């Protein structure tokens, strides 16, 4: 196998794992919030969260580029502390996290809706405080859905292309991921490299979706 192929595969898996870890805490919190709280503008929040699923990924990438670029509202602050995100591995991770987040939130949310409120209430009658109820009852009862959502998000992150190419580019050995690599190699006539990356992508995604489906079904 080509060395650069292995490097791209390892880099992509590492980035997708980092993106999953990054989105997990806020994603779980938002999922719980949407499942348990009624508030003004809830429909708006739901729509905003799901937007990356339907907006062209390239457009999401452009928004990220605008936000994180040196003159963008977030990029300006980051630059003042000497951090440059655009066209770095960090941009890859961020793009993946934003694209994968809706899948985690939607899947985890059904878990919180099923982990019925009554178990939490019963724990409260036993004198247990809200944070302990959340960690010892709510989270364990929803763990399969959270795990399934995280895996689904991870799979989505592995295949991320549109947002990544805009905000991180295709720099060999720095920001080139599986999906971006397939495109770049195919474009430049390196068909065997493209085919190798394609085979790796299919294999990883296949396993991840299989496990994710299994987790959701045995809930």
């Amino acid at each position: 196998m080509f060395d650069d192929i292995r490097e791209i595969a390892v880099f992509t898996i590492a980035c997708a794992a980092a993106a999953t870890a990054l989105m997990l805490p806020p994603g779980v919190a938002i999922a719980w919030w949407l499942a348990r709280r009624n508030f003004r503008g809830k429909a708006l929040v739901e729509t905003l969260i799901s937007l990356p699923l339907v907006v062209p990924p390239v457009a999401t990438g452009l928004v990220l580029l605008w936000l994180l670029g040196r003159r963008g509202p977030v990029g300006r602050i980051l630059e003042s502390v000497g951090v440059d995100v655009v066209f770095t591995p960090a941009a890859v991770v961020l793009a993946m996290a934003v694209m994968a987040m809706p899948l985690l939130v939607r899947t985890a949310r059904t878990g919180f809706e099923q982990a019925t409120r009554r178990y939490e209430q019963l724990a409260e009658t036993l004198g247990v405080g809200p944070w302990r109820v959340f960690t010892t009852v709510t989270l364990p009862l929803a763990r399969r859905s959270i795990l399934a959502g995280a895996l689904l998000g991870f799979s989505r992150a592995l295949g991320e292309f549109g947002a990544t190419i805009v905000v991180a580019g295709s720099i060999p050995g720095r920001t080139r991921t599986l999906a971006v690599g397939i495109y770049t190699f195919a474009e430049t006539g390196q068909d065997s490299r493209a085919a190798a990356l394609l085979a790796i992508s299919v294999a990883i995604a296949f396993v991840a979706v299989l496990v994710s489906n299994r987790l959701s079904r045995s809930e």
Partner: protein
Amino acid sequence: MRAAAGTPVFDCDITLRQGGFSLEFALRTDARAVALVGPSGSGKTTVLETVAGLRTPNAGRLQIGGRVLFDDAGIDVPVSARRIGYVPQDALLFPHLTVARNVTYATPRTPRFTLAFLEALLDLRPLMPRAVQGLSGGERQRVALARALYSGPDVLLLDEPLAAVDRSARVRLIAALQRIRDELGLPVLYVTHAREEAVALGEYAVVLDRGRVVAAGRPADVA
């Protein structure tokens, strides 16, 4: 926390409206074990849930064992601070925990009910390492009761504690509940639809129908 002399154990008078259902419930008695009797849909479970703090009355006052749990003048003790032991009809054991971890889930508020005492009282020892999924109806009730008592409650709320229990287990569970009532002096408010249960356990019975108290007194007379 003990009831002052002259204060009834149960001193409740509440109004609750929810959807199309309205409940008017009053109870004032020195009896420690009170049975709530009545047809399904009469509001028995709603009374327990209101005492537990899971539903909020529109008006009234709830005082048990000298402690005010709710008063429309501005008191609404949070669920986790009510010091109640609630056993719902379906037991609601935590499905992801073993029997032992269910029983000891709470941090005891008083050291009154030790694990060894509860194991003996409710014959739990052989159940402790098991998963809750394989338990019979009677076993589930015993585990849920132990979980409620372990938390050190000031009052016990039982919803049809004997409904899912077979005949032989029923005799033993009634004996255990009688011990809790007599030896431990814990106020018990429990729902039942069976007259013999009201008579076996209750010192006092309240008959509900469509959200109203239609009779109250000695179980043998009213149930």
